[in-house]
């Protein structure tokens, strides 16, 4: 039997989050600028963006911690901030802090009481699931950042929510911890049917664990879609061939050097034609294969280029 018997009620709902023209301003700063976004039910949804892009502001609005300046937002079909809806959401925003005089078990017992749960909270099971069984009776004042993150995730999950919002859940974790957290997130989405919204700066992790992503930039939605679609749109034909100059001549501004090879930014359908043209030009082709773009390159393309080392040094000197 599923641990989430009430999940069937959500089947008729296609979107867990819907925002229309959502705007939040802090003085002159527009943290969210007319954001319209629909997050579908099920799976793991990544929210990406550079610092200050509006991710945390969106989460705070979804959790009823702040009110939007303008626009509409619906969470699980209801208004954000409605306690009836909020009870169906688990969240961990940034590194959680807990009363330092409490043990990990006491923290979960306290939150179980706050959430109106008795023995249903299955505290031991959640401590085990996040790998804190051995530290269950230790006071949290001695916990590392990674252990606090795990406890925060257990706190977010123990109410068996329909929707879980996790902001940087692997921050401060060691590699095995990150791997365990990734497996836990996937298992919650795949086995328990929980919809998970995840923000992280670790783009490789996001690419591994998320089904869809939204990329925010300056409070606006820069890109949105399935991870596979977004990375496919940045697909390149990698050619190991000589002479490189002749290939670059054929490709023009669609070509770029990648070590000893050339990356051709062309649609997949144009691949055979390009290869024929290169052969006719007398190019010796050792290898030709399609390489997908990673999420990082998509992210950088959507949010603007990172500063070069020289620019960073210049900024530091100027500062």
């Amino acid at each position: 039997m599923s641990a989430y018997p009430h999940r069937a009620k959500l089947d008729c709902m296609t979107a867990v989050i819907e925002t229309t023209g959502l705007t939040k301003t802090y003085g002159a700063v527009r943290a969210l600028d007319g954001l319209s976004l629909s997050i579908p039910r099920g799976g793991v949804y990544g929210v990406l963006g550079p610092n200050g892009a509006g991710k945390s502001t969106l989460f705070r609005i979804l959790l009823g911690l702040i009110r939007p300046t303008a626009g509409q937002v619906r969470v699980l079909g209801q208004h954000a901030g409605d306690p009836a809806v909020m009870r169906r959401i688990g969240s961990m925003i940034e590194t959680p802090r807990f009363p330092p005089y409490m043990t990990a078990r006491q923290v979960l017992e306290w939150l179980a009481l706050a959430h109106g749960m008795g023995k249903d909270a299955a505290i031991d099971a959640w401590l085990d699931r996040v790998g804190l069984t051995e530290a269950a009776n230790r006071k949290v004042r001695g916990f590392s950042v990674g252990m606090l993150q795990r406890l925060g995730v257990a706190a977010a999950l123990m109410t068996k929510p329909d929707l879980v919002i996790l902001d940087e859940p692997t921050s401060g974790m060691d590699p095995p911890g990150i791997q365990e957290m990734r497996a836990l997130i996937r298992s919650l989405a795949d086995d328990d049917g929980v919809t998970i919204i995840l923000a992280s700066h670790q783009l490789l992790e996001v690419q591994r664990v998320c089904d869809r992503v939204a990329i925010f930039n300056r409070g606006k939605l820069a890109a949105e879609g399935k991870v596979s679609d977004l990375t496919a749109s940045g697909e390149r034909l990698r050619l190991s061939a000589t002479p490189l100059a002749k290939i670059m001549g054929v490709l023009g501004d669609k070509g770029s050097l990648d070590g000893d090879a050339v990356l051709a930014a062309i649609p997949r359908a144009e691949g055979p034609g390009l290869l024929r043209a290169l052969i006719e030009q007398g190019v010796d082709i050792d290898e030709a294969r399609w390489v997908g773009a990673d999420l990082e390159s998509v992210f950088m393309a959507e949010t603007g280029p990172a500063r070069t080392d020289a620019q960073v040094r210049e900024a530091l000197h100027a500062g």
Partner: protein
Amino acid sequence: MLADAIRSEAYRLTRNRAVLSWSLIFVPLVWLAVLIGGAVIDAKVDRMADQLLPQLASARAALDLGDTLLSAAGQLANPALLAFLLIGAATVFSSDYRWETWRLITARNSRPNLIMGKVGTVKLMTLAGLGLFLLAALIGAVIKGVVLDKDLVFRFGGEEPRTFGLLFLLAYVRVVQFLLLSLLAAALTRSQLAALFVPLAVGAAQGLLIGATPLLGWSTIDWQTLLVFPGAAYEALKSVVLGGVPAAVLQEGLVWRAVASLALWSFIPFGLSLWWFSRQDLSKE
């Protein structure tokens, strides 16, 4: 639900042993020590008196625990108990700002319930604090009886239970009224230090300024005095309960003015806190 909020706040407070010790145990323990010390000194004085005037030795009255209870009820809202209960109240009211835990619980309950849960917990803590103080007074009296070799009796009839109940209720209202200033300070400043020191400063200022009221031509039972100084309102009501107020003064509406003062000093800080908290950005603490 409100019950969930009270249960979780009470659970958290009971896990904070340092705060519980200071706010609930310290004052009754010190009071007990003072009573025992007084009993030991009294015993020495009695021994000296017995040697000088042996004919008085058999004439000593029994020690009435009923009187002890009434006397202690009249001293419940003392400054020491107020100050140390404030430690617990300030912790309850400001802990979610201090540990950034609002975001963990606001998603589960309405904001009015969360605030009322804290107030409910502080009210329970106040009842416990007042009860422990009475217990310390009773234990002190028993020890005094043993040390002084006096008979112990418990006469608690007639008007005494009613008087005791009214004194206890008055003290409870006065303490809660004072502690609600801590709620307002916590909500407005998000600071535990402010939650602790603002009520202390207000209480100290009122204690000093009430001495200056005759300069303004105000008596201790004038409506202005009662309105500005809730401590004076409490003392006035205590005098009424103990029968120390002339009928003519009672007819001028002293009781209602004093009750109105305590009510205003309770509901205004509570209402302002609730209003402010309902609009507060809790994503930053």
